[in-house]
Structure formats: C-alpha cells, structure tokens
C-alpha cells in the first residue's frame, strides 16, 4: 500500500516538474515576442556589407602587368590571363582577362597578392544570372563600377548589428552621425600614429 502511495507521489512530482518546465519554455517563447524582428525587407532595405566583405572581384585592365601571380596563388588556378609577348616593345601585351564567379570561392588570395593592386574586392553580392556561363566575367564585366547599397536611391541601407551604436538593436531610424561601439580602424591608426609621433619627439628631445 505504502509502496503504491509512494509511486503515486513520485508520479505526481514528475507531473508537477514537467508542468514547471513547460511553463518555463512558454515564458521563453513569450519573451521572444516582445523582441524586435530581425527581418530586413530585402529588396527595399539592404544591409551595408562590412568593411572586409569579400564580394565580386573588381579588375582594372590598364594596371595589370600580366604577371600571373593571381593564377599562382589561386587555389584552383582560376583567373585566365591571355597575353602575348610583343617582341618589338619587349613587353607582355595583355589581350583578355577573365574570372569565372561560378567557380571562384572568394578567398581573396589574388587580391592580396596582386603586385599592382589591379584586383580588388567589392561589396557586390547579387550575382544571380539565368545561366551559369554568364558568371564567367571577362575584363569588361570585371571592370564595371561596383554597385553600392548606399548609392542606390531605391534602397534604404541598414547597418549591420556590429556597426550599431552601443545598446541599439534596431537599425531602423538611426540618428545621423551615430557612431558604432568601439573605435573605428581609422581612429586606431590615427592614435597609433600620434603615439608614435609623440614617442619620436620625446626620443628626439631626450637625445638632443
């Protein structure tokens, strides 16, 4: 009898505990309801890509010296550099340059190693096309001016979470000139430079 009663008691305890857990879960869900939606209404609002965003690669034909460093550092030797050696001028003459973005993994090695900085990363990420061969960009397509979210009059640019002022969760209706939390790279550079300057001056004065 007592054993049976103990079973009933244990079962009741279990039931009460599970009810408590369900209540906790419900309160978590309920709490989520008052948080602001993270939705960005995409074609009308777009996030501003971050400073180190690796988008479509931009290429300047006139700066290129056909050194093929980009091909060598590329994990899959993707860039196609078509040049011919001009014997009269004794220089390489570049004819075509192309990168197939259907194959590119956007690692950025080519941009990193390009000796003349003729390759650079853009903020463009909308690369949808109707056929995969259209992704094979030639030098003209690569040299097109990149699209910028902030320049598009149809789009409301939104800051990403890391670029919002401290404590702000909502990218909508930010006041003008509001700054992100922490220091920007420019500030860090300026600070280190001024500190170096101060150090150099103090060194100079101690020497002199």
């Amino acid at each position: 009898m007592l054993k049976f009663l103990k079973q009933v008691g244990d079962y009741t305890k279990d039931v009460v505990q599970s009810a408590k857990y369900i209540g906790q879960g419900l309160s978590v869900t309920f709490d989520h309801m008052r948080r602001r939606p993270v939705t960005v209404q995409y074609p009308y609002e777009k996030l501003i890509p971050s400073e180190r965003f690796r988008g479509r690669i931009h290429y300047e034909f006139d700066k290129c010296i056909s050194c093929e460093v980009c091909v060598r550092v590329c994990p899959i030797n993707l860039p196609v550099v078509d040049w011919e050696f001009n014997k009269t001028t004794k220089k390489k003459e570049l004819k075509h340059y192309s990168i197939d973005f259907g194959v590119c993994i956007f690692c950025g090695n080519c941009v990193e190693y390009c000796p003349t900085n003729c390759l650079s990363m853009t903020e463009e990420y909308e690369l949808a096309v109707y056929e995969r061969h259209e992704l094979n960009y030639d030098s003209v397509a690569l040299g097109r001016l990149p699209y910028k979210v902030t320049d598009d009059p149809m789009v409301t640019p939104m800051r990403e979470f890391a670029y919002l002022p401290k404590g702000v969760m909502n990218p909508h209706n930010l006041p003008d000139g509001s700054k992100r939390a922490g220091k920007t790279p420019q500030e860090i550079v300026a600070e280190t430079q001024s500190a170096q300057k101060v150090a150099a001056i103090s060194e100079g004065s101690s020497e002199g």
Partner: protein
Amino acid sequence: MNPGIDLQGTFIESLQGFGLPAGAAKAIWMPLPMLIVLVGSTVAVLIAVWMERKVSAAAQQRIGPEYIGPLGILAPLADGLKLVFKEDIIPAKADKWLFTFGPMIVVIPVFLSFLIVPFGENLLISDVGMGVFLWIALSSVVPIGLLMSGYASNNKYSLLGGLRATAQSLAYEIPLALAVMAIAMMSNSLSTVDIVQHQSGYGLLGWNVWRQPFGFVIFFIAALAECERTPFDLPEAEEELVAGYQTEYSGMKFALFYLGSYVNLTLSALLVSILYLGGWEAPIPVGLISSTFNISDTTPWLQVITGAIGILMTLLKTYALVFFIVLIRWTIPRVRIDQLLNLGWKFLLPVALANLLATAGLKLTFPAFFGG
C-alpha cells in the same frame, strides 16, 4: 433573467408586418442562421490563420505577413484564393470517390458543431438540450473522414497518417467527454447556454476554471489532441509522414482540410471559453454595473450593449486561447506516438475519472458551491 435580444422573433414579426404569412416569414428566416454560421466561422478561421502567422512570426523575431492589406490581414484570404485556383489533382491509382468524400466528411461535422456555440443569451443558432453532447458526437465522425482520405490516397504516408489520426482522436475523446461530464454534472445540463448561465453572476470568480482546474487542463490537452495541434500533430508530422493524410491532396480539397483544421481549432477554443471561462460573461458582470446605475434590464440600448459585450468577450477569450495554443506550438516539441497514447490512456483517463468522482463528491457535500 431578462430575455435579452430575440432576433428571430423580431425578424419574423417585422416580416409579418409587411403582410407576409407566418410560415413564409419563418422560411425566410431559416437559411439566415446557416449562412451566418458558414460566413462567421470562415471569417473566424481567417482571423485564426492570420493570428497564427503573426504570433509565430513574433515568436521567431520575424515580421510575418506585412504587405497584403493592413498588417497583412488579407494574407489568409489570398491563401484561400490561391487554393481555389489551383489544379485539382486526383492520383491515378487513388480511389476517386472516397478521395473526394474524405475532406467533406472531415469538414461538415466541424461546421455543424457551430450550432451549439452561444455568443449571448439568445445569440446562438439553436439551444439544443444536449448541446455539448452533440459536439462530442459530431467530432467522433471526423476520424472516419480522415481514414477515408488516408485509405483512398493509395499512399503509405497517407494511410499511416489517417490511422494515427484515428487512434489519437479515439484515445482523447474519452478524457474530453469525461471532463465535459464533470461540467455537465455541476450545471445540471448539457446545454451550452445553461452551462454559461451557471457561471454567471459573479464575474471572474464564478467561472468554472476555479471549480474545475483539473478538468480545464484535461479538456485543454484533449482538445489540442483532437485538433491535431502541436505537440500532438503526429498525423501530419512532416518529418516522418510528409503531410499525413493530406499528402496527396491539392487545390480545393486540400483547402477543405486546411479550413477544417482551423475551424476545429477555433471551435475548440470557443468551447473551452464557454465551458470553463464563462462564455459571454465579462470579468465584471454587466448586470452589476447596470444595477448600480439603476438602469432597467429591459432598456433596448442596454440590451444591445450587453449583446455586443457578450460577443466581444467570447471572441476575446477564444482568441486569447488561440494565441496560447500558437505559443505552445513554438514551445513544446512533438511527442512520439507511444508517448501520445500513454498520456491519453494512462494519465488523462485516470485523472479525468478521478476528477469526475471528486466533482460528484464535492457536489454532494457543497451543493451551494458546486451546483445543487
């Protein structure tokens, strides 16, 4: 008690005033409630669907429907229109007749059950003496439709879904009926109007939740399972059974299933609010306020206001429950089939029986409080 508004009587009288015979006036009145039930329940479903989408979105920090009408209120309507215009596919090896009849058998009883839902003293289609019992009887027909469509689809997922749905609703009908029985015992009637009137007079304190807390929980869980809502949505568990018995359906037939499930949801919420949350009674009784200001019960404008408050209160409670059900959907994961049947047979049934016994005992000991 004051009779409140008598729509039927006034309508027939006014028609007779135009010189129509009594029989013809009644014949003109008759289709009106049916039309109101169909339109009203469909609108209620649209609101429930919209609410489900919006609340789900809010729980997941999304926005949800936004551009179709103000706050996306027309999104469910657009859904319905889309389903109307979709192609009606019947699989080649399916049983054509049963495939067509299945959704109908699922939907018709659910709509019929709206007969007994009162929004006020006289604001219901018919005050049948056996009220809630009729609902239980009608809802027991639904599994036949589910089995029919599951079998007719000629698809293993459909058949499994149909069988699961049937097993589930058989298991949870019994605790549901037992919980209702405890209520019926307290209010000495099965009629929904009597049940609400038994809770009236004391506002918030008179509601059945306080007298039947266990019954409320049992009824709520069983109603969730009857509606196949999460955590009991095994018949259409998309990870295992694609969509259960709805797998092969498309177009208008799928829309019937969809409509049926949401009508069932609102109906269950309505019944929970009628049986346990005082139906059309406001938290502070209207009669108390009117008597403090010395206004007679038979004043026409007071009756209109009382009726409006009744409808408002019923809908408010119902949609609060729908909100809670949606919240549960995003909180509790789906149970396994053995857990489901264990919960039904080994937990809810004994607890419901004990609850019934306790109610009977309490009714005999405290007849004033538990209804003499």
